[in-house]
């Protein structure tokens, strides 16, 4: 190494050069990247300026960094297991930029995330109760007042036995009984107030947690579904929120009640007889120790159990909408087995936490009941010896049972509390996550004219596994272009980038000369209309589905949009016309009908840029022609991008872009491309021959 060469970073891989688990190392310096094997021998040493591109290629169970050099050579730099994917992504990024700035920023962000999660999850949930603090306080206060009322009967009991019955004071009997009844009535009334207010607060809080979770999730871009399955997101809004609800409607108040009644009963006990009190409270330290041991263990057990049950909902959310597929392939048995596996995981996890409970709680209960027995014993001796009266002992025993009541309650609450706090923690961590794609502070509202420019765009769904490679093209305002290419070549990905569902890896996308990262996301999307490859309708009427593109559309606009999509006629044939429900995801309509309603939904918003991704792939060619003509009318002057496999759909656009394996391979008009005799010409001639063959058969 020369003097002016310094190490920028070092990465250690877990796969050796021989392809077995072992060590190899990648050093990135300001001049080269060097790979050493486990004995310190140099395997590769590549000068940074020689590298033309870096990518991370994923294989099963491992990945590698692949370098393409300027002279065309390809270097398989280093292999590593998937566990190190993140680190080596960074390595690839470093090699690319040969600077360490990026990683420093990333580390900083991770730290911040950790900081924000610090707050106790259940306190975090309580924040949602702030708007209802009066009701919450009223509920808890009436609960506590109820406790103090509850302290009176044993006291009356002592009076009843010692001062009334044993003292033979007949006339006092009715007084003391009346007082007892009034006390009970008051305590029932307080109970009702408490139940109502607490359930009011908890339902309201659950409502606002759900709304804010939903709103938070909606801030994300569709790429969140690449990391979170939709079933898991759904279960955070439904299950987790309702567990938290339990905490507020029941747990919190029980907790406070138990603690307060513990304290007050303890005070009463000490007032009655200190020696007995000492015996009664003897098991307490043991209890506290036991419970804290338990909670430490319980945390991961409950997290584990929770994940098993979300596995089940994730599976169901996936399989039940896919029911027709299951039936078509006769895979009922297979799906049942998959579900059984996951359900039995739930059972196993549940038993595991049950066993954990059993390791602690029976022992604790035993401690408590032995304390009571001992008090009977010693207290009994005292009464026999005349040290205390029978009334005192009865009151004492009654208090002691009131004392261990709340303790039992507290112990039995540890488990659901842990569950609630697990749920709260999950909600909290989702809320703490920030969408990676969002408006930059100085982003602008742009009145789009429709000039699109891709400048050397690189993009991969996982970093450095590029799906688009160095894509550059330009579409002028009002131009109509077609994108064609084999399946999986990256056509849809181009549209997702334009809508900023994902941010580009390298390069930039400009609209009217402005980088789309500087345009407000909402402003951008409002002006781009897309009919996607598998359009999803909502379970609502046809009219409302079309109006999704423009909520304030007049009835005529709804019908006009449907007319452009050649849907007006078939809709009027439906029994409830435009009020006909579409079914879940549009399942009550045919594929072609669904596509046409999706087209109507898009055109009604009058987008400046119109993207049709296989928008007419499910309709017959005659209907497609009709839609094309009607669209021509409306698309005139709008930038239009049409993606299609059926080349007859796109052949008369202004310009065709041919994509293959993430790269643009040809650009030109239909005639020019036929002339060139490249990929497009090949695709065309196969489709053309098929058509010819069809025509011959039908003759």
């Amino acid at each position, binding site marked *: 190494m020369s003097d002016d060469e310094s190490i920028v970073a070092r990465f250690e891989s877990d796969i050796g050069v021989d392809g077995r688990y072992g060590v190899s190392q990648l050093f990135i310096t300001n001049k080269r990247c060097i790979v050493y094997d486990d004995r310190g021998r140099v395997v590769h040493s590549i000068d940074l300026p020689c590298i033309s591109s870096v990518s991370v290629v994923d294989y099963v169970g491992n990945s590698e960094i692949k370098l393409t050099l300027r002279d065309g050579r390809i270097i398989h730099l280093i292999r590593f297991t998937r566990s190190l994917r993140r680190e080596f992504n960074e390595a690839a990024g470093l090699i690319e930029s040969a600077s360490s700035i990026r990683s420093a920023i990333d580390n900083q962000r991770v730290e911040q995330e950790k900081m924000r999660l610090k707050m106790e999850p259940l306190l975090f949930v309580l924040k949602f109760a702030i708007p209802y603090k009066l009701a919450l306080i009223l509920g808890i206060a009436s609960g506590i007042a109820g406790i103090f009322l509850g302290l009176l009967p044993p006291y009356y009991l002592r009076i009843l036995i010692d001062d009334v019955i044993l003292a033979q004071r007949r006339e006092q009997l009715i007084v003391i009984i009346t007082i007892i009844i009034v006390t009970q009535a008051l305590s029932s009334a307080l109970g009702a107030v408490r139940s109502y207010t607490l359930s009011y607060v908890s339902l309201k809080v659950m409502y606002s947690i759900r709304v804010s979770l939903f709103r938070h999730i909606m801030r994300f871009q569709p790429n969140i579904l690449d990391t979170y399955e939709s079933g898991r997101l759904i279960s955070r809004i439904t299950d987790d929120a309702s567990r938290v609800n339990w905490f507020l409607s029941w747990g919190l108040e029980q907790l406070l009640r138990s603690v307060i009644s513990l304290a007050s009963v303890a005070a009463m006990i000490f007032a009655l007889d200190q020696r007995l009190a000492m015996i009664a409270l003897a098991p307490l330290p043991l209890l506290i120790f036991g419970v804290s041991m338990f909670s430490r263990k319980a945390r991961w057990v409950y997290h584990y159990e929770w994940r098993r049950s979300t596995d089940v909902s994730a599976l169901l959310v996936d399989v039940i909408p896919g029911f027709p597929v299951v039936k078509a392939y006769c895979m009922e048995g297979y799906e049942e087995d998959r579900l059984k596996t996951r359900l039995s995981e739930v059972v196993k996890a549940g038993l595991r936490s049950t066993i954990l409970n059993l390791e602690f709680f029976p022992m604790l209960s035993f401690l408590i009941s032995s304390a009571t027995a001992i008090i009977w014993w010693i207290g009994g001796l005292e009464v026999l010896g005349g040290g205390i009266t029978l009334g005192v002992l009865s009151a004492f025993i009654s208090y002691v049972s009131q004392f261990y009541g709340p303790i039992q309650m507290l112990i039995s609450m540890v488990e659901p509390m842990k569950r609630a706090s697990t749920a709260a923690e999950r909600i909290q961590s989702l809320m703490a996550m920030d969408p990676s794609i969002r408006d930059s502070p100085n982003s602008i509202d742009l009145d789009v004219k429709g000039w699109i420019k891709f400048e050397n765009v690189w993009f991969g769904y996982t970093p450095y596994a590029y799906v688009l490679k160095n894509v550059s093209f330009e579409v002028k305002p009002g131009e109509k272009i077609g994108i064609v290419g084999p399946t999986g070549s990256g056509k849809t990905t181009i549209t997702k980038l334009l809508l900023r569902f994902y941010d580009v890896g390298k390069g930039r996308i400009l609209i009217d000369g402005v980088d789309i990262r500087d345009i407000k996301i909402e402003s951008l999307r409002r002006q781009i209309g897309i009919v996607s490859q598998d359009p999803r309708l909502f379970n609502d009427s046809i009219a409302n589905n079309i109006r999704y593109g423009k909520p304030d559309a007049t009835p005529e606009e709804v019908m006009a949009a449907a007319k452009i999509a050649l849907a007006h006629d078939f809709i009027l044939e439906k029994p409830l016309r435009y009020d006909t429900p579409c079914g879940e995801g549009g399942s009550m309509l045919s594929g072609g009908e669904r596509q046409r309603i999706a087209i109507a939904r898009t*055109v009604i918003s009058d987008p400046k840029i119109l993207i049709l991704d296989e928008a007419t792939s499910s309709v017959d060619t005659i209907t497609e022609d009709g839609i094309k003509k009607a669209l021509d009318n*409306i698309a005139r002057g709008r930038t239009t991008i049409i993606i299609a496999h059926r080349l007859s759909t796109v052949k008369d656009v202004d310009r065709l872009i041919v994509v293959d394996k993430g790269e643009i391979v040809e650009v030109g008009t239909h005639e020019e491309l036929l002339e060139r005799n490249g990929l497009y010409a090949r695709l065309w001639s196969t489709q053309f021959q098929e058509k010819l063959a069809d025509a011959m058969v039908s003759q």
Partner: protein
Amino acid sequence: MSSVKDYAKASFRIVDPDEVRIEYDENEDLLTIYIDGKVYRGVEPIKPFPLSNPYYVLFRSTLTHEDVCVVRDIRRLKREQRSLLEAVLNKRYFIPSIVDVYDITYTGEYYVCRVKTDRGDRIFKIIGRRNVYRIDDKIVIIDVDENIYLIESYEKMGRRAKEELMKII
């Protein structure tokens, strides 16, 4: 660049109630329409939004399948014009409004609903929630025989009706 709005204007002529004259052609069970001195025969009145916008009517030629015109609110038509049109529509769109619910019982297979509608009393069967749709604040019920009933507003129903309806919505 022409917008959908322009296209809508060009495709659907909205007529004022006094611009149009309607005649009933008993033979064909269709309408004849006069607008601006032009005559359209064989016209069918269609409610494109029979539930969400029931007074909106589209007139469509059964001969050319062209949309002749639109009346946005037929309640504003002249009295005899309106009753003539409603007579035709009431047959084509028989959607009674439920005004009261006597009771709803579950037989294990069906919910049997005994109701009072604006067209008289009626007993009908539905299978469950999937026969009940909500459109805006209206409730649409489609029974097992595909008859359609409408509840204009759940909130405005009487107390008993609301309690009974809770079984199916």
